[in-house]
């Protein structure tokens, strides 16, 4: 079975040489004709415009077709990688070539592989600049349902409003780890995009190995199909259904495990996975009355005290399922670098890091009339946040990268729990 290698493995050297040759050939095709479906420019525009906006009249149907912020995020990108892999094989006449994956341990430690830094290599992107920020808590493996992990239910629009935990971190964070093409919706112009998304694809398959985790069984997800250019078919098109690629076995390829130190960190994270949870039983226990923005704290009154167990004699001795949601988040200006930490506190205690907000694509969503809802699982901090049965929860933000001019805002900050 074709196997995708970690980019840091010794065996990846020849794979990267072939990759570079293919990128050079595709760039040459685009120089001749920007509308060549097998050229570098066209391939990147299939993902999106730099501003993340919708396809414009007269542009090819394939353009601005990527799916984010909903449950087609993972299957669409898997298909996108598969068609790209076929294209590289066709253009290099190397039928065994497989896309390597970027084996970063987390977004803050995503170091660019040497082959992608060589100015003479087609794998380099002159627009790429470093945008370091501190480590953020990885919460994607805690998501019990596919909707929480891979994105909320929704029609396959370009930019949906309920990104899953994997999309928020590490997907968005790695896009923001570098300023340039990679931090925009035209990110496939930077060859790092392809190895980054191969890793996201691998993490989907790892998540499925956890107990109780499974893909949606809903036919509206499984039977959805997307069209892509394909140089290997007579029609030069290929339609893929989600049910054909929803697992690696079905898609017909595999991943070699990451290097030992990365594998060890992943194994530790997987060692005690949180129990599978259902999205639909999230129950609101408190919400802010005022709109929120990054320039000031927001107070969430904890109104449904009975559901939080505040009406019993004893305080909770075990963690309570707790989710902090920023609802209808928008953003008008995007410098491509802004990253924010979202902090939560109660009772005058030190704040905890609820999550990191890397607003990848958010300005495009806002410009097209949408808003996103961002959910952070703060169950691990529930004993601290709910200690002493506080009246309110305070939410603040801090800029950890980029400019404060690019400021997201939201309609409401809310706290949810699970009612069993």
């Amino acid at each position, binding site marked *: 079975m074709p196997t995708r290698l970690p980019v840091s493995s010794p065996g990846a050297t020849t794979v990267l040489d072939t990759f570079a040759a293919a990128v050079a050939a595709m760039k040459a095709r685009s120089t001749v004709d920007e509308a060549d479906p097998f050229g570098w420019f066209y391939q990147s525009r299939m993902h999106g415009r730099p501003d993340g906006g919708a396809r414009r009249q007269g542009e090819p149907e394939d353009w601005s077709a990527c799916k984010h912020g909903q449950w087609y995020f993972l299957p669409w990108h898997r298909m996108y990688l598969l068609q790209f892999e076929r294209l590289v094989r066709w253009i290099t006449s190397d039928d065994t070539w497989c896309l390597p994956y970027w084996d970063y341990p987390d977004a803050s430690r995503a170091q660019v592989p040497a082959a992608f830094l060589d100015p003479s290599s087609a794998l380099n992107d002159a627009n790429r600049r470093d945008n370091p920020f501190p480590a953020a808590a990885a919460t994607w493996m805690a998501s019990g349902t596919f909707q929480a992990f891979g994105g909320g239910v929704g029609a396959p629009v*370009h930019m949906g409003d309920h990104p899953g935990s994997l999309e928020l971190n590490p997907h968005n964070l790695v896009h923001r780890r570098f300023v340039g093409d990679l931090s925009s919706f035209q990110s496939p112009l930077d060859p790092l995009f392809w190895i980054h998304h191969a890793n996201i694809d691998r993490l989907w398959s790892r998540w499925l190995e956890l107990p109780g985790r499974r893909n949606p069984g809903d036919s509206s997800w499984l039977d959805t*199909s997307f069209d892509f250019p394909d140089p290997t078919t007579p029609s030069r098109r290929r339609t893929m259904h989600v049910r054909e690629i929803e697992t690696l076995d079905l898609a017909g390829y595999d991943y070699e495990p990451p290097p030992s130190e990365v594998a060890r960190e992943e194994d530790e994270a997987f060692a005690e996975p949180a129990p599978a949870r259902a999205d639909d039983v999230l129950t609101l226990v408190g919400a802010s009355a005022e709109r929120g923005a990054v320039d000031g704290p927001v107070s969430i009154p904890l109104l449904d005290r009975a559901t939080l167990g505040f009406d019993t004699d004893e305080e909770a001795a075990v963690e309570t399922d707790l989710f902090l949601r920023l609802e209808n988040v928008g953003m008008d200006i995007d410098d491509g670098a802004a990253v924010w930490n979202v902090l939560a506190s109660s009772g005058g205690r030190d704040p905890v890091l609820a999550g990191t907000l890397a607003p990848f694509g958010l300005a495009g969503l806002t410009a097209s009339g949408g808003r996103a809802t961002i959910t952070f699982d703060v169950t691990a901090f529930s004993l601290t946040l709910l200690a002493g049965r506080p009246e309110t929860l305070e939410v603040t933000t801090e800029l950890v990268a980029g400019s404060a001019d690019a400021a997201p805002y939201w309609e409401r900050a809310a706290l949810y729990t699970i009612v069993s």
Partner: protein
Amino acid sequence: MLAVFARAAGRLSVVRPRDAAGPLVVALGVAAAVVVLLHHHAVATNEGMLHHAIDHGVLMAAVMLPVAAPSARLVVVRALRNRWASTLVAHAIGYGAVWLAFGILAALVIDAVGEKLGGLACFGVLAAAATAWQVSFVRRKLTDRRGWLRSGPPTGVSAVTADAAGGAGQAWRCVETCWVPMLAMTAAPNLPLMGVVLAIDVSEWLPGSNPYGRRRRIRPAWGYATLALGALTWSLVRTIVRA
């Protein structure tokens, strides 16, 4: 429509019965009101244009209310449990109010245009217009344009007004994308044909082998085109026979 209900019911099944009681009572009340209004419309006699227009507006609101079920569910789960029923009512009122206004306006317009064209021909022309609208780039841009459901304050009068405004906003986005087929529905000469137009309209969102993307929106276009062809042909034949 059935798929929409089934999906909404499936999502409600994970909610505790006592929490779901309020919204369910409201939903059943709305359903009963829809049946009564449909019956009333079917037997109503012509009592003047204004009465007819208001009657049609109420019918339009009643027919479209079930389409608000998915958004109502999302709004409800964003509310405190003791406000679920009132949230549902406020959302439905906001949603229904927009369709009521559209229905009244549509009846007045169709009455004016239909008199000149003839009832069936008017329906045929509007069905043809619905076909063109369905495949137009303008509509595609509108359907691709993202909307969002408001998250209001958790309690108080402002929470109720936010819920109602959210319902109205949701309805306005529906009007924007399907006002032409809804005009055709208004021009339909009888209630069953109105139902056919509505079914064709909703079919765009039913799951099936026809994938999402540009091809899915072709399905309703074929339906409208068939209706247009049938109505215009029948209208022409009738005119020739009468002549």
